[in-house]
């Protein structure tokens, strides 16, 4: 009989029994509702062992590839090690290899982490200042391209973690980080699909990873990157991104400022307004969003109303913490 390993306990499946039934019969508490694979309340993740295609129906591709499945639809045929949603991410040790300013408020932090394992450009990690205090930062690095994990850390006023990173952290220091998390990443499923990447402030970080990861995978469709800030001094990596657009005819880079008259080839306005006025046929696009949660939320809705499909919109919503 296949076994199910969860929370350090082993559960034995009866023939034809679903993961959800096995767990609840044995007294484990798993939230569930429709028991028909529709409501997705019983979403769980398989860390070891494979789950049926049936149990991943209706899930986003980035969830499927990371082993997420619906417990009510999964009849295991082999031993599965599974975890609950939001299970405490494994913690890893990393060493700071570089801290470099990107503009007046954002530094690049390069971390070396030998236990990182596979990660995907666009995912995020939690950085721990101490046992009880951590913040999420998107990865700007891409596997196979960058030797280290890189983060773009903006100094937040009174920010306890960003203040520590900007003020105290030194090259050579050891820090604790989480394993990579999040579902906002590129999959080489359709190399011709047009991509729209939209971010504000240090929300450029995952997009900088994703755009290079997509090109690294041979993406051929047009890639439109809109990076916005209130003022020009909030933008960064401008030369690198211009060089990337120069090298790849498919890449279109639009640095945007919303609170000042643009100089050079900057665009004036909010990224979502500019992108919506530039682009048509959004139904065909794959979209990646990162930045202030209000921007992400409103952009998601406006792009959807303009024809983008929800399953093609990727964004990790960061919860804003009080400092």
């Amino acid at each position, binding site marked *: 009989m296949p076994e199910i390993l969860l929370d350090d306990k082993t559960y034995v499946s009866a023939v034809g029994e679903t993961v959800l039934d096995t767990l609840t019969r044995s007294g484990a508490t798993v939230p569930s509702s*429709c*028991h*028909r694979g*529709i*409501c*997705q309340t019983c979403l769980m993740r398989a860390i070891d062992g494979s789950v049926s295609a049936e149990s991943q*129906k*209706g899930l986003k591709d980035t969830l499927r590839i990371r082993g997420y499945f619906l417990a009510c639809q999964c009849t295991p045929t082999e031993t599965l090690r599974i975890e609950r949603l939001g299970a405490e991410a494994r913690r890893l040790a990393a060493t700071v290899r570089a801290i470099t300013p990107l503009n007046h408020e954002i530094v690049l932090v390069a971390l070396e982490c030998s236990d990182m394992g596979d990660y995907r450009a666009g995912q995020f990690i939690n950085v721990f200042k101490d046992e009880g205090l951590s913040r999420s930062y998107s990865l700007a690095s891409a596997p196979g391209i960058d030797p280290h994990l890189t983060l773009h850390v903006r100094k937040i006023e009174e920010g306890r973690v960003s203040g520590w990173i900007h003020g105290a952290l030194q090259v050579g220091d050891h820090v604790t980080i989480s394993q990579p998390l999040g579902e906002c990443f590129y999959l080489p499923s359709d190399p011709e699909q047009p991509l729209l990447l939209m971010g504000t402030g240090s929300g450029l970080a995952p997009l900088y990873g994703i755009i290079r990861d997509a090109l690294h995978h041979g993406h051929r469709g047009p890639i439109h990157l809109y990076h916005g800030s209130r003022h020009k001094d909030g933008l960064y990596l401008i030369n690198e991104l211009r060089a990337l657009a120069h090298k790849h005819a498919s890449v279109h880079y639009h640095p945007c400022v919303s609170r000042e008259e643009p100089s050079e080839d900057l665009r004036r306005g909010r990224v979502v307004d500019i992108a919506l006025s530039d682009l048509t046929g959004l139904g065909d696009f794959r979209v990646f969003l990162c930045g202030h949660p209000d921007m992400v*939320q409103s952009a*998601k*809705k406006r792009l*959807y*109303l303009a*024809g983008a*499909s*929800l399953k093609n919109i990727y964004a990790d919503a960061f919860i804003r913490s009080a400092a």
Partner: protein
Amino acid sequence: MAQALFQKIGGEPAVNAAVDIFYRKVLADDRVNGFFDDVDMERQAAKQRAFLTMAFGGPNNYTGADMRRGHAHLVTRGLNDQHFDIIVEHLAATLKELNVAQDNIDQVAAICESTRKDILGR
């Protein structure tokens, strides 16, 4: 009979195609979008998916009591017959766009109608 309707409309692929169109119509309609303005669009879309599966006569475990409980907070915010009718109209228009035959659309509307009292908490 309900299962037969679900198959005629096109089953699960039809639900998936309809959700995107239907939810977009609802979100764009200022008369009703206040009831659907969840911060989490994915979760809201999943709920619409469950609703359409039910309305298409597909497999579901929803009871009248579930419908009542699930919509009670919206009734206190003013959900009424007019809103209900608008939602059913958007659903019918969605199915028309997907070239579903009129008699099947009528059957979907009838299934919706059967839930009116529970949804409006009467």
